[in-house]
């Protein structure tokens, strides 16, 4: 059991346990906090894979941005401390059967397939490479998707302002 494996087990245990708590907690603000823990330990997995820039994006944008947005909307739309009503038993059982069957099928398929076990030792990706790839238009360049995603973000921003704006009537 190497240190990496121990770290991986800690991160994945946090991910699985807090994911379950996120979808079962009856207090909605606590569910959002548990989601924050899941996203932070996902960033830990990215750090383990040496994608430092991606882990930083995950921490700032997901854990910092989206969770705060969700918490604000919770505060705007529901009473703090109110408990969500429990789902019906039959609904719970059917959803559990669907999720468990899908998970069992996928995990069985993953375990059947022999992924190559060669050890890939590569250095960490430098910010330099990421910046060059993000702005170049040649092979392995991502200038066009970068522009498209910025237009998408602008459209989403304008759209959400227009939708959430108070109407006069």
């Amino acid at each position, binding site marked *: 059991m*190497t240190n*990496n*494996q121990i770290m*991986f087990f800690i991160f*994945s245990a946090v991910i*699985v346990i807090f*994911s*379950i708590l*996120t*979808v079962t907690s009856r207090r*909605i603000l606590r569910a959002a906090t548990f*989601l924050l823990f*899941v*996203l932070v330990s*996902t960033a830990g*997995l990215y750090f383990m*894979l*040496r994608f430092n820039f*991606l882990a930083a*994006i*995950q921490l700032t944008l*997901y854990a910092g941005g*989206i969770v705060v*947005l*969700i918490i604000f*909307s*919770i505060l*705007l*739309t*529901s009473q703090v401390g109110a408990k*969500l*009503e429990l789902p019906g038993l039959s609904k*719970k059982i*059917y*959803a*559990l059967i*669907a*999720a468990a069957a*899908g*998970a069992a099928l*996928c*995990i069985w398929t*993953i375990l059947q397939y022999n*992924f190559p*076990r060669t*050890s*890939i030792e*590569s250095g960490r*990706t430098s910010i330099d490479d990421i910046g060059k790839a993000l702005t170049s238009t040649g092979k*392995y360049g991502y200038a066009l*998707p970068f522009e498209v*995603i910025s237009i998408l*973000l602008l*459209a*989403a*921003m304008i*759209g*959400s302002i227009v*939708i*959430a704006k108070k109407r006069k009537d």
Partner: protein
Amino acid sequence: MFEGVPLNWFLITATLMFFIGIYGFLVRKNLITMLMSLELILNSVNINFVAFNKLLYPQHLEGMFFTVFIIAVAAAEASVAIAIIINIYRRLVNIDVENMNEMKN
């Protein structure tokens, strides 16, 4: 594989997270908790992309850029969804999915 951690473990973690998200999406009634389950699903897909990028092309960054774009799309989706939820809350005063058929006309 990645300094001692096999790829399978990453994939199994992502699978469990994905199907927990599916369970939450099916069970929850409140729209914001459904949105949180959706974030779980998107996040598990990101783990898969990054792990396969490290396995197949460690010298290129294709999976990483795909993940960055998925995160941006998730941010856009969350902002629009929350705007719609707030608008629904103004009209109906609660945000359970059962009441959404009142938006039909």
